[in-house]
């Protein structure tokens, strides 16, 4: 939009702005809030000494909330349009600024890689050996696990356009197969890692067969159900999985047979270093970095192969695919199982990293988080998914760092409780301002003359 046009739109809006209708609108919202807060906020329940139920009315709270809703809405109606437009244009600008960066991809990749490799050392340098533990473990490793999961799910959702709400099931399959194989049969981590991938892929095919005939909402619901089924089986098959108590004592990964401990056969002793728990973290960091990069490499490669193009074509229009002789069931199954495989490998890493797993780690919330990473990042975009994972998981971890806010809001204030609220707000904000994700452009997989990114408006999201 040119500047002149923008001005006319703005003045038109001012002209058409009417206090009466704004007041009516805000009043309506206040009424709505009142109705909504009546069952939720108006009464607090507690038990008195005789175990009877007592209702404490909290009308002051209700009044506050209604007032906030009224004035909030009113001020949004007065200035909100401008704010929203500014944010919108800012978001577009950010997107535009980021877009030409695509041309320097090689440089970025190199700088990013060097930074990632140097990260644990930088953490030690800056935060000291004690402080670095947190930065490497909670931030580095944790984020990279989600980057890998995001990339794995990106194959299914972003490329093939299959809405999978039960991805965490494959993460669980990988983790549990590693835990069971290593505790029951004493298999080493390095054998469990590929086996976990294979098992997860196998389960992907097994679950995929009946499911992939469904489309859209139906597929989403059934995958959701499968995720829950796997979790419930893990909880209830107590003889095998030890139920909700989980499996502990999973052997930690070794450095080509050298354990990370203070013993004489340990890694530190072998290399003549002083033992510190940092060694294991460094190792785990580089391991998950390598696994994530492997996922990325395979995905990028596959995208340029016929199978990858068939996935994207399937996302675009599966009827056209069938008219071209593409076997849609096999194509969907490959996407499903390859995505599952990476989820399984990440699960194996997860199990070995903590040495303990329980079904609590594989709840629907995890699937939702991974899916939001893919959606926020921009479906199909590898870089976008990585950025979204850093923002979402790093952001959650940062909330833990906000303990000092207690001095402002009182001792009962726990910032991590607001995680889901912030998540939701980020989602809503994205859907309003960048509905196709951070990076919505699609890169062609094959170029004749000149590479040009394809605008997100033309790229379809898939119907199932």
């Amino acid at each position, binding site marked *: 939009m040119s500047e002149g046009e923008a001005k006319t739109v703005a003045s038109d809006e001012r002209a058409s702005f009417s206090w009466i209708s704004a007041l009516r609108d805000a009043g309506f919202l206040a009424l709505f809030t009142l109705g909504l807060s009546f069952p939720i906020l108006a009464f607090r329940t507690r038990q008195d000494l005789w175990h009877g139920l007592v209702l404490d009315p909290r009308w002051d709270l209700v009044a506050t909330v209604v007032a906030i809703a009224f004035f909030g809405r009113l001020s949004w109606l007065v200035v909100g349009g401008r704010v929203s437009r500014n944010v919108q244009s800012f978001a577009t600008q950010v997107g535009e600024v980021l877009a030409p960066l695509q041309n320097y991809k090689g440089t970025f990749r190199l700088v990013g890689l060097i930074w990632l490799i140097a990260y644990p050392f930088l953490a030690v340098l800056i935060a000291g050996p004690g402080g670095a533990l947190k930065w490497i473990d909670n931030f580095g490793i944790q984020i990279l696990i989600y980057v890998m999961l995001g990339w794995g799910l990106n194959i299914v959702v972003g490329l093939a356009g299959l809405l999978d709400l039960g991805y965490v099931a494959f993460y669980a399959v990988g983790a549990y197969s590693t835990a069971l194989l290593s505790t029951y049969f004493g298999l080493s981590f390095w054998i469990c890692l590929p086996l976990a991938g294979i098992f997860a892929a196998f389960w992907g095919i097994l679950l995929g067969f009946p499911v992939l005939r469904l489309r859209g909402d139906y597929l989403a619901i059934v995958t959701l159900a499968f995720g829950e089924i796997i979790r419930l089986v893990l909880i209830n098959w107590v003889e095998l999985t030890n139920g909700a108590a989980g499996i502990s004592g999973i052997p930690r990964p070794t450095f080509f047979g050298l354990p990370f401990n203070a013993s004489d056969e340990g890694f530190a002793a072998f290399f003549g270093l002083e033992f510190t728990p940092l060694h294991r973290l460094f190792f785990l960091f580089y391991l998950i970095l390598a696994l994530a990069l492997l996922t990325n490499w395979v995905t990028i490669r596959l995208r340029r192969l016929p199978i990858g193009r068939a996935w994207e074509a399937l996302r675009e229009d599966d009827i056209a695919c*069938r008219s071209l002789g593409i076997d849609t069931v096999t194509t969907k199954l490959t996407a499903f199982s390859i995505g599952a495989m990476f989820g399984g490998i990440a699960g194996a890493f997860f199990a070995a990293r903590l040495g303990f797993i329980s079904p609590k780690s594989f709840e629907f919330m995890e699937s939702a988080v991974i899916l939001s990473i893919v959606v926020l990042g921009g479906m199909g975009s590898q870089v976008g998914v990585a950025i979204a994972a850093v923002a979402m998981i790093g952001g959650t971890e940062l909330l833990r760092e906000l303990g000092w806010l207690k001095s402002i809001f009182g001792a009962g204030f726990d910032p991590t409780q607001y995680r889901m609220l912030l998540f939701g707000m980020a989602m809503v904000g994205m859907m309003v301002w960048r509905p196709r994700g951070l990076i919505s452009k699609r890169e062609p997989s094959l170029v004749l003359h*000149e590479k040009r990114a394809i605008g997100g408006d033309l790229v*379809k999201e898939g119907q199932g």
Partner: protein
Amino acid sequence: MGQAAMNTGVGPALEPILRVEHLTMRFGGLLAVNDLSFDVARGQITALIGPNGAGKTTVFNCITGFYKPTSGRVALMSGGPQSDPAIAALTDSPGRSQRVGRGGVYLLERMADSEIAAQAKVARTFQNIRLFTGMTVLENLIVAQHNWLNHASGYSVLGLVGAKSFREAEAKAVEIAVAWLDCIGLKGRADDPAGALPYGDQRRLEIVRAMCTGPVLLCLDEPAAGLNPRESAELNELLLSIRDGNGTSLLLIEHDMSVVMEISDHIVVLEYGKKISDGTPDYIKNDPKVIAAYLGVEDEEVDEAEAEIEG
């Protein structure tokens, strides 16, 4: 065969590539296609015309496996003439296809949509264009060559390690795609998203995308819909070049009489799911039943309508 040979206008019976016999398609209480029989001659352009809702698209969907016909037989004879006893034997067996030499007999009503495209080599386009809008023009044509390319990539194993044989196969696929793009004058737009092309170009791209699958029979559902006269003329040329240059047989649904009358070798007219006429363009043009049905006019207005068609 009895019904199919009931040509009222065609001179000597031509050798068919597709034989549709007693095809019936019922949607609940609606008889969309009613005991329809016709032949598509090898190496020719056959047009299927009829008023809106006559069941033309439904016939296409039955031929290409998107619908499973209620009853009837749809036999494709690729490679060369096939004997009636061979088709009859296949019909009696539980099989779906019988390879003979480089071609074979395929009973399309028994096959699924993607199998029909992949094995029997019947390609189609859609009444409402179905391109991969978010993929480039070139990608669209490469996806169309998926089956042999995927095979050449060793089901992705060879491709993943970057084998030379796969790179060569891919180069070959690009070459084929570029040749087709040249043919419709879109080579310069190879790297543009297909969804950004003008409507007429999208129609032609969809046709060459279907051609990239290497079909023996190409089914086009209203390829001229929404085209201006110049684009229609270009389309005619493209279709004739496909017929003559590639030896592909064509079956097309079309409302645009300038296209139908000019390029078809043979026309089948449908009304309310039933065949009402079948013959050469000249024969059809002068068949009062067709004029009445096609234009939906009373008998006394037929002359008027006839003049319109001639004009």
